[in-house]
């Protein structure tokens, strides 16, 4: 009997293996496990055996039957998969269904980055008009009429037959005194915005560009504080440690006044082609807010100190993304923004 069970199991497994279609497998199932099959007969015959034999043979017969059953099931799955693969093929390399995605101008991305970093350092974001009075753009920030400092910025003037003269703001410093007149220190703000210079354009000059001005006013605010804020900002922006270097310079709205450089973002100061082997890259202007400006803002002379600094957003975007021509930002060519 045991031998018979074993033979039966062997031949069933053989038949399963040989089956190549679902129909053939079904026939195998009927032959080996159907009502009239040998397994069914054996199971039925178990009843006539004595108790000892039943105890010995029963489990073996059951196990063999179960094994055949499982094999059929797994073969069944295998054949189904093969069938689906045959009949339900798709080309996974064909393109997915996608809606077009739009893109931001790279300036917007850089501006967000910058605004987020400054916001995290407690800076408020402020702005003012792009068409500005001569007063706020120049006089209030200590650039009097008839002073050669006026020549440092080529200015677009607005047609105005009478009254106060208006300009396209030449810098975001025009917002300084406006803000001061509405607020009492201490405060820290940034002013990112569009500015204009009446100058010919080329790959590195635009008549329309964006500046970011940062202004901190309080009691005992110093150059050392500026260095700390500037280094934190640039390190966060470029994702690596950045040092700031000051060089003496002159802007009428600050005293002392500086040009500032950052350590090269490519070589960290060792010298490479990006920084013309100097290890430093010129970024912007800075200084301690001139007391005349604070006074124009309505503060008592000498009560507060503060620093102001600014740089061009385009310049930072060009450095970050290696953009070769400043005119790309306002070109309207969507092949520019599509890369972002």
């Amino acid at each position, binding site marked *: 009997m045991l031998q018979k069970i074993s033979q039966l199991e062997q031949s069933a497994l053989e038949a399963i293996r040989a089956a190549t279609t679902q129909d053939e497998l079904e026939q195998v199932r009927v032959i080996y496990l159907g009502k009239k099959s040998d397994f069914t007969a054996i199971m039925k015959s178990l009843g006539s055996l004595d108790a000892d034999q039943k105890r010995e043979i029963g489990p073996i017969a059951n196990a063999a039957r179960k094994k055949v059953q499982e094999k059929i099931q797994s073969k069944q799955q295998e054949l189904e998969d093969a069938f689906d693969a045959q009949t339900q093929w798709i080309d996974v390399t064909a393109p997915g269904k996608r*809606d*077009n*995605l*739009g*893109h*931001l*101008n790279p*300036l*917007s991305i850089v501006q967000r980055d910058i*605004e987020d970093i400054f*916001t995290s350092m*407690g800076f*408020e*974001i402020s702005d003012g*008009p*792009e*068409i500005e009075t001569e007063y706020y753009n120049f006089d209030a920030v200590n650039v009097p009429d*008839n*002073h*050669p400092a006026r020549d*440092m910025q080529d200015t*677009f*003037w*607005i*047609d*105005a037959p009478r*009254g*106060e003269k*208006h300009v*396209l703001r030449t810098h975001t410093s025009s917002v300084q005194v406006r803000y001061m007149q509405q607020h009492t220190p201490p405060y820290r703000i940034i002013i990112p915005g*569009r500015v204009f210079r009446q100058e010919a354009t080329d790959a590195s000059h635009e008549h*329309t560009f964006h500046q970011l001005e940062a202004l901190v006013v*309080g009691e*005992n*605010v*110093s*150059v*050392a*504080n500026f*260095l*700390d804020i500037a*280094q934190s900002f640039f390190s966060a922006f470029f994702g690596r440690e950045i040092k700031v*270097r*000051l*060089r*003496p*310079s*002159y802007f009428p709205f600050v*005293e*002392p006044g*500086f*040009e500032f450089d950052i350590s090269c973002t490519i070589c960290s100061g060792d010298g490479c082609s990006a920084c013309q082997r100097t290890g430093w890259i010129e970024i912007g202007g800075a200084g301690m807010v*001139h007391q005349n400006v604070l006074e124009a803002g309505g503060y008592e002379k000498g009560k507060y*100190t503060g620093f102001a600094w600014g740089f061009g957003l385009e310049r930072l975007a060009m450095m970050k993304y290696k953009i070769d021509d400043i005119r790309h930002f*306002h070109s*309207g*060519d*969507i*092949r520019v*923004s599509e890369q972002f």
Partner: protein
Amino acid sequence: MLYSYKWLQELSQTKKSAQEIAQLLLTHSFEVEDVKPQSDGLEDVFVGHVIAVQEHPQADKLKIATVDLGQEKLQIVCGAPNLSQGQKVPVAIVGANLPGDFEIKMATIRGVQSAGMICAPDELGLGDDHDGIMVLDHDATIGTSFAKHMELDDTILDIDVLPNRAHDALSHQGMAREIAMLEGRKVLFEEKNLSQIPNGIEVEIQTPNCLRYVGLSLNNITIEPSPKWLQNRLKSLGHNAINNVVDITNYIMLETGQPLHAFSQEYASQINVRQAKTSEKMTLLDQTEVTLSNEDIVITDGNLPIALAGIMGGKGSAITDTTSSVMLEIANFDARSVRATKSRYGLQSDAAYRFERDLDPNLVDQSLARAVELFEQICGAKISAITDVYPEPIKQWSIALPHGEIEKLLGIEIEHSNVQKILHDIEITISQKNDVYLCHVPTVRKDLNTPEDLIEEIGRIYGYDKIHPRPLNEIVKAPAKNEQRLFERTTKDFLITQGFSEVRSYSFYSQDDAIAVGSTEAHVSLSNPMSSQQKYMRRTLAVGLLQSASQNQSYKNTTQLFEIGRLYIPNKTGLPDEKIVLGISVTAKSDNAQQFYVLKGLIDKYFNSLGIKDHYYSEKATRNTTSVVDLHPSRQASIHLQSGSVVGSIGEITKNTAKYFTVKNASTAFCELDLDLIRHISQDLHEFIPLEKYPAVQRDLSIIVAERTRVADMERIIASAGTEILQKIDLFDLYIDKEKAERSMAFHLSFSSPQRTLTAKEVDAIMEDITSTLENEDDIQIKR
């Protein structure tokens, strides 16, 4: 300004190289734009001897020269008319890279080989003379370096002196003083005792705008070219050599910073400085004729103007070849007045450049000493008379600087002794009282007026690199949000997920552009635009978007663009209004109204994302301050908020506009929205509405209507008949049967009540009301 390294070296006694000086100045004083040895580009130029000249067989104007360079003889084809045998000439050999990046290569010119070039002065970076080759002195040694022969062994520094230091540093003496100071030394410039010269020229100052006037009478002068060294020095610093008298005045200006002017004495025997009379006329040295204003200062001979003070001499009184006596002017004029006059007539001169930067009247003394010396030395001039009119001599002033202010402003502690040394080095005398320095400032340092000015001096000389970062004392507070910027951000993010790309365009356009979009509104305009194409400040974003759409046509079949930017709306008084608007455009190559609906769908989705509901569209875009564009007459609408106020307009760009912007074979839908208004509305919207507790019942309704029946009107009828339990009407099918001139519309209607579950029976009853109301209208059939 250009500075000669050798001259600075002579005056400052520095041992540093030009590069080292540049570095020193960069760290402590000035930006140095360029450091350029004069021999740059002349390394492969040698003195050659023209030993033979032959005609070129193929060209009349060319000659073939044989040039001896000592080591070798070269054959060079040359076109210069002044070439002749026996000349000593500068020869650039093959491989030379001349100034201006001009590389000399082996060449065959009309069949004849040429191994180099005989150079004209301009090709060697020496002026702009290109009339012929440069002919050298006869005793020039064959084969020596050209630069060496010419003594071009100086290095020129281009140093950027900004207005704050123009009073003291726009001169070789001033720069030398700075260099020596940074090296911890002091230089003294010789002053001459001129008391023995008789006071003889009649000088009268009749205007407060002339602060000092020195007239010096020089006789026994022969006008001739100045010595080579003087000519070379002037040329190397970008000045032309003219004659001995003029060259000396320029030389002294470069040395001391003080402009001088030489008159022919016969026209300037008497000097009167006064304001010009209105409409007085004069002809200047450069032939310009100016009609003067009473705000100009003139030098007169007692009667008529002979110079425009501080700017330019008059033509009539100029030095000529026959001048033998000179009236030399060394004066000081009010900076603002000079600047105003210069701007008024658009004049530029070295003198004006300096005077408008506010010179120290005491600078006259140094220049006077040099003038006497050089005119005697170079021209053999006899100084016969001098007059110095200086109504209110400028004296030193004092600034009180409390020591504590230094650390307060710089954020670094600097010891008293260091502070004192630095102040002393910049020639400030100090008297100290407790912790306050009382500083007496030399008059040439007009930039030093406040304690901060002095702190800057201390900081830069001590070294800004010694300042270490320090965190701010004030604690960080959460900054106020800038709602507007955040809102712009949300809007941009929404639009890019919808497939729209951001462009940024200029704030200005041309009058033609404005007309092309149909705007006749007044625009703010620039008085000095880059070009007439950029004269008007924009009142719509349509121009920029259409320009961009046109530009991108070659890459895209469909362009979906947006811009957020400001419009400038003129005001009668005060600044223009600046409105922040969102402009969106959809351009596609199809002629139906699809783009309009794409854009309209986008606006609805955008409003939905902001929680704005119940906005609606009405035919005819309302023209207002932010909607100035003429759109397709029957494909345009105003966009209203629930309150009725207009938030923008939408429509198709007209064929003519599209043609102007060369948006070809495509149609464009455009909308412009008032972003500030949308932001304010969307901020007020966020209140939670309780969820519906009872299920909604859906019914569909199909109707057939006349072709031009509007969906909005049908919805209105359905809504009012549907009572308050009709919660939602959704058009899901719209079909036009052109032949029958009919439209069919199909709606999903959704009914629900917040109080209870609706029964089918009551919804059926309402549906019955709706259909009968519709049927009562003309031209509406219910499709059953």
